[in-house]
């Protein structure tokens, strides 16, 4: 399978901070690839390096066969970018913004109007086409941001935390849209710190922590490799939870506090010492916490 994005030994420092630290990453053409990590893991820096808006200190990066940063402009012709932070022109209407970007992405003059109409349709914003951005709701603005990145029918789309801060219904809509992109053959690289988002959408998930990839695979592979088949959740008062935590530690079981319970991984292989509790299938969140030691949403 052809490679859409490849990073080898990439590092980026900002002063004292190693934002990206020896990153190796390969994204195959046609997949939806999820870059999962807590805030500060280096996901956004990685995304910016793929458009050459941040330059790597070390390592090599290629996107769609073009070597960065030298041939970055060429690769940007064929990819769409949806940033985490809203950077829409608040003074312009939806149609004006999409028209400007159709030009920037070199959509031929004769196709521009149709491209704008199609993008408005993708964003479900036809009724608001001539409304200025300032007057749109947060969900509409995010959809416009996505449509702007798709105006030129890119082969590759970068989505940086596409649904952060959105309400559940808008998030569902965007998920449908992203899934549709993948189904139409577009390669998608999405960074997220929502486990559910990665689990639902990504064919391959790479877990990023402290500027590098610490595990990679399909969501199911990651779960079975790092959390096993089952998780045992033991509920009780704080003293009981502390006791269970110590028991797990002394037996060498991998465990974590999970809200009002202690969760013990790989419950399927626990012997008779196992405390009483509720067994449930392991999920990506369990694997993620086992890998990074960090709790996220």
């Amino acid at each position: 399978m052809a490679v859409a994005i490849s990073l080898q030994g990439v590092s980026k420092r900002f002063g004292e901070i190693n934002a990206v630290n020896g990153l190796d990453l390969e994204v195959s053409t046609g997949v939806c690839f999820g870059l999962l990590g807590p805030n500060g893991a280096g996901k956004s820096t990685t995304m910016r390096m793929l458009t050459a808006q941040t330059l790597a200190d070390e390592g090599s990066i290629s996107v769609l066969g073009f070597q960065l940063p030298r041939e970055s402009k060429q690769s940007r012709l064929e990819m769409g970018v949806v940033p985490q932070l809203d950077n829409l022109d608040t003074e312009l209407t939806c149609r004006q913004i999409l028209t400007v970007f159709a030009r920037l992405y070199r959509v031929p003059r004769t196709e521009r109007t149709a491209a704008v109409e199609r993008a408005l349709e993708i964003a479900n914003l036809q009724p608001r086409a001539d409304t200025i951005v300032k007057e749109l709701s947060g969900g509409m603005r995010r959809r416009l941001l996505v449509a702007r990145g798709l105006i030129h029918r890119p082969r590759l789309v970068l989505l940086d935390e596409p649904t952060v801060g959105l309400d559940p219904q808008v998030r569902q809509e965007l998920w449908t849209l992203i899934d549709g992109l993948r189904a139409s053959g577009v390669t998608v690289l999405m960074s997220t710190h929502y486990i559910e988002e990665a689990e639902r959408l990504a064919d391959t998930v790479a877990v990023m922590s402290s500027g590098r990839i610490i595990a990679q695979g399909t969501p199911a592979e990651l779960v079975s490799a790092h959390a096993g088949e089952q998780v045992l959740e033991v509920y009780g008062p704080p003293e009981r939870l502390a006791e269970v935590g110590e028991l797990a530690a002394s037996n060498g079981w991998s465990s974590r506090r999970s809200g009002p319970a202690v969760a013990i991984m790989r419950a399927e292989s626990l012997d008779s010492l196992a405390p009483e509790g509720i067994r449930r299938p392991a999920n990506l969140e369990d694997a993620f916490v086992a890998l990074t030691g960090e709790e996220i949403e």
Partner: protein
Amino acid sequence: MSWSSQPETAVVGRPPASVRRVGRLEPAALAGVMSRDVAIFGRYWKATTFSSIVQPTIYLLAFGLGFGTLVKTIGHVKTIEYIGTGTVATAVLFSSAFPGMFNTFIRWQFQRTYDAMLAAPVDVEELITAEVLWISLRAGVYGMAPILVAFAFGLQPEWGMLLVPLIGFVTGFGFAAFGVTVAAIAKTIDNFNYITSAVLTPMFLVAGTFFPVSSLPEGVRQVAQVNPLYHCVQLVRDASLGTLGTADLGHAAVLLAFALLMWRLAISQLGKRLID
């Protein structure tokens, strides 16, 4: 939400981009960036036009009716002609340096428009060139407003006046790029006050706009020689009053050199901050 209803659209219908030539300062990229400026201008042209007419009118009324009754000529030039042509330079300065500073800072820092554009196939050189080009085109056109207003006050039309928009464009290009450079270096938008009061205000007074540089002390006169606005004023005045001579080639050369220098400086300074 109907991307999936149009399968295979992602790859068909366009030639593969890899065969297209991608070079420096592509006209398509410049046009794309400027199309955004045009769209924004469509919302503000009335206010811009209003102030560009009213401002020289006020200058001409104040200087013409007040000062002009006391002083009929400045140098060998009628006061109305002197002030009318001098105001062109101030109009060009303010309509280029201020947008250069404020628009750049706001679009870069607050609206992050530049981040969005640089994720598209546009590079820093194209982005800044297009922005400066747009501001200077506008400055060239609006620089003509004081001349038109001065007609109403008795300024005589002259063929050389057709050169005024071109002079305004070149001067505006330099000052717009100067503004972009200031925006790139400024830590906050308040720092623009230093530039406005310590650089721009003296610059527009020590340029022969409202009184001749020759009336100033020797030291200040030397400063005027390196003030691009002084050369703009001289050129505009000579073109408008039909007194163009060889000295004007020197004035034009200074303005072109200033524009070129500031253009490259703006790209290198803002480029360092847009790409980290």
